């Protein structure tokens, strides 16, 4: 009996492992991925980076340019997350179980948020490129749409979690919808909502780099420029500036989160 049980367990684990290995092989052959090349290219990349991928005196001359674009990217990330948060709050209030006005609107709002969330930010950028070209607005709207989708869901879950009891109590006092929202739902959830917005800003800065490369704007564009010119020293300075600003913003948000709660 006992050995049988252990045997079954081993067979089960073995089966899962086999499936995963087959999946990996299938995926590797689909994409012409070779593990050997993977292993050989890592040391090569390290050697190359140590030899080329660091800023030199020359690249620091480009720092003002880089910082200007970095500032633009940071502002785009913040603006898109902040404006999206306002829209997301409205949709979350309509879509949340606790505060919904009626089932039809709730479902509709969930559906819209779902569509916006599940289409990657890169696709939005490519679509918006048609209308807004290489301006900051392309990046802004792409990040706005993606932030809106994500924040709506995050806000909805926060409100669902936090609100039910208090909303019931205020409804019992005869309070109207707006009183309930502004006097109970928002005070209860505001610190978590802001925490989500801060998280979104961090995410947006990373995504802004990608969007910039795709659409030719912001910090991503500068990186792409130096990268394609094979000016890797300057490109590394761009990466460094992105890393430092992301780490800085992370520190700030962690501090704000601690104080808010």
């Amino acid at each position, binding site marked *: 009996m006992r050995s049988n049980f252990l045997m079954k367990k081993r067979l089960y684990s073995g089966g899962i492992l086999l499936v*995963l290995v087959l*999946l*990996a092989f299938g*995926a*590797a052959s*689909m*994409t*012409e*991925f070779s593990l050997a*090349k*993977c292993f050989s*290219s890592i040391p*090569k*990349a390290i050697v*190359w*980076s140590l030899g080329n991928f660091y800023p030199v005196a020359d690249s620091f001359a480009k720092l003002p340019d880089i910082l200007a674009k970095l500032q*633009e990217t940071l*502002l*785009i990330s*913040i*603006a898109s997350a*902040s*404006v999206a948060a306002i829209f997301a709050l409205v949709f979350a209030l309509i879509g949340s179980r606790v505060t919904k006005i009626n089932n039809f609107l709730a479902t509709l709002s969930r559906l819209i948020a779902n*569509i916006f969330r*599940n*289409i*990657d*930010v*890169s*696709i939005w950028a*490519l*679509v918006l*490129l*048609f*209308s*807004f*070209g*290489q*301006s*900051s*607005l392309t990046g*802004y709207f792409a990040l706005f749409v993606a932030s809106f989708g994500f924040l709506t869901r995050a806000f909805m879950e926060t409100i669902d979690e936090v609100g039910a009891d208090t909303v019931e109590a205020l409804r019992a006092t005869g309070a109207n919808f707006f009183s309930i929202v502004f006097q109970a739902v928002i005070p209860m959830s505001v*610190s978590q909502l802001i925490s989500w917005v801060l998280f979104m800003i961090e995410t947006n*800065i990373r*995504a802004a*780099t*990608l969007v910039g*490369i*795709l659409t030719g*704007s912001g910090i991503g564009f500068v*990186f792409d420029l130096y990268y394609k010119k094979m000016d890797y020293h300057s490109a590394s300075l761009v*990466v460094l500036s*992105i*890393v430092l600003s*992301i*780490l800085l913003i*992370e520190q700030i948000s962690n501090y*704000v989160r601690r*104080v*808010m709660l």
Partner: protein
Amino acid sequence: MAMTKTAGPVLTNGGVPPFQEGRIKIRVLSKANIAIRLTMLILAVLTIVGFATFNYQGVHLLKGLMSTLANFKTIFFQPQFAHFTLLEAIYQLFITLSLGVLTTLIGAIIALFLGMLAAENLSNKTVSNSIKGFVAVIRAVPTVLWVLIFAVSAGLGSVAAVIGMSFHSISYLTKAYSESFEELNQGTIEALEGCGASWWQIVCQAVLPSSLTSLISWTFIRFEINFGVSVAMGAAAGAGGIGYDMFMDSAFYYNLHEMGVITYLILIVAMLLEFMSIKIKNKVRA
């Protein structure tokens, strides 16, 4: 009950004569409330500064929005193939999914070890903190930059893409795994230590079995994210797959109809993956 704000605007209150705000104060500003208001204020100011300083390149906002709406209409209501067939599109979709699978698997294997070292109950504080710090720095470099940096020596293609994309997967999963490990009861570990079990025995007999379900759940959630990432890398960093087709349609063919088809395909897969990961999450929680 100190005096506060002086008379505000005169408001009427359902037949009661107009009253002045003030006298008895209602709120006391706590540190938390100040932080909340200050944060909102700063975000609002930065948003306005942003809009004032954006590089508009002469693009008209309203016109742009109108034409975007028209484009959305084309994409969502008139999707149509032009340069490839449904079969080819699905093939490309599988390439994108495959990139996601490889990235997730590689990330999971490496993160499993890093996660054990980062879990405070399985490791010591110094090691744990240095791994957590290391992982945070990795995450600060956007994925697309990891891919492009590797592409210099490995060439554009699946190898650079998978390596580059693995960094964020490793970082994400290390954090998630280590937190799952830390949920394990300290008593269990001590009991096994008391029996003379070695570190590896404890890991294999207690830690892994008890956290297995949550590891699986996290891994699948990361796979869901990686699908989106590999679409993006196909478009921006030559990783191939459906993202690359999307990029060609946008940058070279200017074909919104075909972008519509691709958008729908991606949307379907993404929603399917999300549905599955919610199912898995609920199962794990229960």
